């Protein structure tokens, strides 16, 4: 089984008990994200639509590339890859 590191953005760390990185197993980005979701209840709904695609306000990166520019959620991962969840963040003024 392939193990990857998933970087958790600050707004979602309440679902990972504060962890900024979580290890997950899977052969593709989709599998790794679903493994992550199974281990951390409530997280998946913030990242993926019910159809399993990244939500409109979230991007999923494999290394420095958006998976949308690769093979989407079906993009295959290799041992040690880093997946980053990058959500829209609004804060700035107040």
């Amino acid at each position, binding site marked *: 089984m392939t193990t990857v590191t998933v970087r958790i*953005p*600050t*707004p979602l760390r*309440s679902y990972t008990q504060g962890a*900024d990185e979580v290890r997950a197993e899977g052969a593709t980005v989709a599998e790794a994200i679903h493994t992550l979701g199974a281990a951390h209840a409530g997280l998946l*709904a*913030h990242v993926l639509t019910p159809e399993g695609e990244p*939500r*409109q*306000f*979230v*991007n999923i*990166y494999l290394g*420095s*590339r*958006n998976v*949308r*520019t690769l093979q989407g959620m079906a993009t295959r991962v290799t041992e040690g890859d880093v997946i*980053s969840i*990058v*959500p*829209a*963040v*609004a*804060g*700035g*003024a*107040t």
Partner: protein
Amino acid sequence: MKAKERRLAELRAAIPEVTPREALALQAQGAALIDVREADEIAQGSPPGGHRLGRGFLELKIEDAVPDFERPLVMMCNSGARSLFAAEDLRRLGYTRLFSMAGGYTRWKNEGLPVEVPPRFDPLARERYSRHLMMPEVGEAGQLKLMASKVILVGAGGLGSPAAMYLAAAGVGTLGIVDDDVVDETNLQRQIVHSLERLGEPKAESAKRTIEALNPDVEVRVFKERLTSENVDRILAEGWDVIVDGADNFPTRYLVNDASVWHGIPVVHGSIFRFEGQATVFKPGEGPCYRCLFPQPPPPELAPSCAEGGVLGVLPGIVGSIQANEAIKLALGAGETLVGRLLLFDALETTFTEIALRRDPSCPVCGESPTITEYVDYVEFCQGGHTHVSS
């Protein structure tokens, strides 16, 4: 024969001379025209497009102005004598194609060739911006660009504070500030453009006072209103060169994005949450827009809750300063901006990560067949908190 005349005769034999008209034609073909006169002579007028380097620092400045040693150089002074000496010096430095303009600027002007009076720095401005003026990447031309530039800041809070102050200090000519909020105690942990004595004062006014105390040359335009679909076109119609987005909510960010695409104004984006910051540049026509990255804002039930908020005070100082840096480069047209790159900064780990952004051909606003063609007033929300419509 005096020594200088003997030497000039030798130089004339060695350096080809051209007439002012020939010099102009060479310039049009790509030669660099180098004005080696003193600053007070140049201030009376100089050919357009020339490098006004003077004679004193010529050898020290020429490589920054003309890095290519094969590029033809036409040296110019007032009568055609100093330019011969200057040409000889640059030949020794390694430049290979040197000409001297016979008759100098006097003849150029008498022949009715184009002349411009270079904009001048008053002594105070020369002093204030001296650290910019001595850098080739800014220099006089760059500083004049900054002084003619207009940057509008959306939000005079955490990100807007450092951005406004650095842009004002750098001498940006006009700064617009859009903010409908007033200063309160909780702001002072990070919003350094405000102060204790400004409590209760509109943030836009408070920022204006700080900016004017720092640099009275900056013209500050204050918009004490919240950016909405109703006022965004009016506010952006004032000819802004750059928008610095330091808003604190999704409705404003999407409004800024859509307006920037339709007005063709680049946006320097910065956002922060707790210990984490994001920064990039959205430049219409050249790179992706905010909606290429995030087509829609999160619905209320998936937005971070208010109780999970908070921000490390220094974080907006870092991200807002990065925004000021990007805005200055956009105004100068220098360097590489963050177009097509999202910079992620983690203040807790002190790491910068960069990820690639691409333009999305199916983007609802800047894509090939846009589906959003008018402003959208999204509902502002905050899970578990108050909800109100932004407009």
